[in-house]
């Protein structure tokens, strides 16, 4: 049993980090903002950790102090948060798909800037930063940081869904105009949701940089945006449980398929397909679940916490609201 955890340490920690990253994307979505900016902040968080651990507090030998990793995570969260306010205020004037495009552009800008020569001392340019020091002897030990991170951010969003600020978020998601007319400041709460997501993404990036041992412009790209969006949409975008389950399961799935192919009980052709065609299977599952589970696999109703349906079906058609009035009475 212990061997299983040690052997699969990297995968298990990656699953946890994917779940937290999915939560970071869930936060703006909770307020109705289709933002794909998380990977950009994730990349920035990673560079902050890489810079701090290799340049600011380099060690000669042995294990890197864990408290310094925590410090890097806090720094990454702070920088991401400040940056999110600056990016969010103009970007969140956009709606729907246009906001999504702007946030993709942000992710791309971060990637391109990390390659720019002026930032090379921090980002290492095209080759990136190598030999990011390890705080632990084995990868599974990253759980000491990853698991509390998931628990804290999960608990945070769980609470958020039950308080005033969270209600303002979902009101904006349901009907921004009506929410505005009910006294909720749309800009404030949308920027808040965006910023909270960015902080979480930055923190994940900082920890990931240590786990991966290296950080470069291939981390936190558009591909990551789409993957993380898939975690949220397939897992479920109506409760915080959805993105967590989505992140965990979809990160494990390709590896599960690969090991399924490796047990040798399947006909060679099928095994070959499972091993090499797993991205096809992965894509097919994405398509199927968006068709059959448009709200995602985990819905509030599934968990027994969502509102019930009314006993009687609603009136199918709303009566015309501008009926000719007065006529027979005047």
């Amino acid at each position, binding site marked *: 049993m212990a061997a299983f955890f040690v052997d699969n340490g990297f995968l298990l920690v990656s699953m946890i980090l994917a779940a937290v990253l999915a939560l970071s994307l869930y936060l703006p979505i909770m307020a109705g903002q289709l933002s794909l900016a998380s990977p950009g902040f994730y990349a920035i968080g990673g560079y902050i950790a890489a810079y701090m651990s290799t340049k600011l507090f380099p060690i000669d030998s042995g294990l890197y102090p864990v408290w310094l990793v925590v410090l890097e995570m806090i720094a990454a969260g702070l920088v991401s948060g400040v940056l999110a306010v600056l990016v969010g205020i103009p970007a969140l004037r956009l709606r729907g798909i246009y906001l999504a495009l702007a946030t993709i552009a942000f992710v791309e800008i971060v990637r391109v800037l990390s390659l720019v020569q002026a930032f090379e001392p921090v980002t290492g340019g095209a080759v990136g930063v190598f030999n990011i020091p390890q705080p632990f002897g084995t990868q599974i030990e990253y759980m000491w940081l990853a698991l509390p991170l998931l628990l804290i951010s999960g608990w945070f969003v769980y609470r958020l869904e039950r308080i005033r*600020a969270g209600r303002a978020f979902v009101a904006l998601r349901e009907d921004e105009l009506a929410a505005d007319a009910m006294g909720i400041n749309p800009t404030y709460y949308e920027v808040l949701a965006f910023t909270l997501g960015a902080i979480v993404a930055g923190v994940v990036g900082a920890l990931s940089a240590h786990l991966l041992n290296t950080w470069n412009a291939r981390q936190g790209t558009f591909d990551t945006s789409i993957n993380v969006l898939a975690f949220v949409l397939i897992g479920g975008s109506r409760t915080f449980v959805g993105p967590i389950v989505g992140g965990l399961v979809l990160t494990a799935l390709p590896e599960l398929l690969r090991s399924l192919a490796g047990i040798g009980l399947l006909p060679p052709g099928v095994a070959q397909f499972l091993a090499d065609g797993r991205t096809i299977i992965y894509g097919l599952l994405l398509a199927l679940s968006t068709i059959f589970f448009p709200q995602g696999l985990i819905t509030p109703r599934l968990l027994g916490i969502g509102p019930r*349906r009314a006993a009687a079906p609603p009136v199918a058609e709303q009566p015309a609201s501008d009926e000719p009035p007065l006529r027979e009475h005047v």
Partner: protein
Amino acid sequence: MTQPSATMNHAAPSAPVQSVLHVQGLTRQFGGLVAVNNVSFDVRPGEIFGLIGPNGAGKTTLFNMLTGLTQPSSGAVLYYGQNITGEKPYRIAKRGIARTFQNVRLFGTLSVLENVMIARHIHTRSSLMRGIFGLPPARAEERETRRRAFELLELVGLSARAHVEARTLPYGDQRRLEIARALALEPRLLLLDEPAAGMNPNEKQELSDFIRDVRARFNLTVILIEHHVPLVMGLCERIAVLNFGKLIALGDPARVQNDRAVIEAYLGE
């Protein structure tokens, strides 16, 4: 011909102190169309003020300008003497003007109770972090929010359906829920956009009594857009009639009902 000259000729935007709402020369153009054309009127404290007119007369556009959802092209709106022209909707809501929508705009996939709790937003102030950690003030505030929301649901007869998804309610109940949600703002001025649409005659009568009742209970001033004439005539103390964006009549129900311009607007010349 009834020219509402008494209220139309205010030169300066200095409202008489006694009016809740002073609308002056309010105009809104959409391209070449003048949806609301130089409309002026005053709404007095505690009255139920009706806004009627044929299709496309500009009633909802006028409501949208009063609540900040549409910016006026020109003109001014004073609320208790303060200029609120062109303010953002959430700021106007904070000042004490609440509204319902012609095409019901509930938070559809949320529960009936959540819909009303959301509208307690401006009367609660616990910060994000206090709320997250459930610290004492925030905790008490949450309980109070829930209690007040239930009270309002009881008032509109929806407390038994508190945990039902709002969009699955029958249409009439959705309208009642919208009123409960607007009342949760504790407004001084309530704007109802066709509150009786889709209700049967019995429900309309009940609604009429209900509106009078909430006015008295919450000390409200009410402006309502309504097409159902018996309801408007029976309920409103004064009525303004819009036609093609212009105010063509203003006065008590009997006067408006016998007004030549109004009859022409509805029946043709």
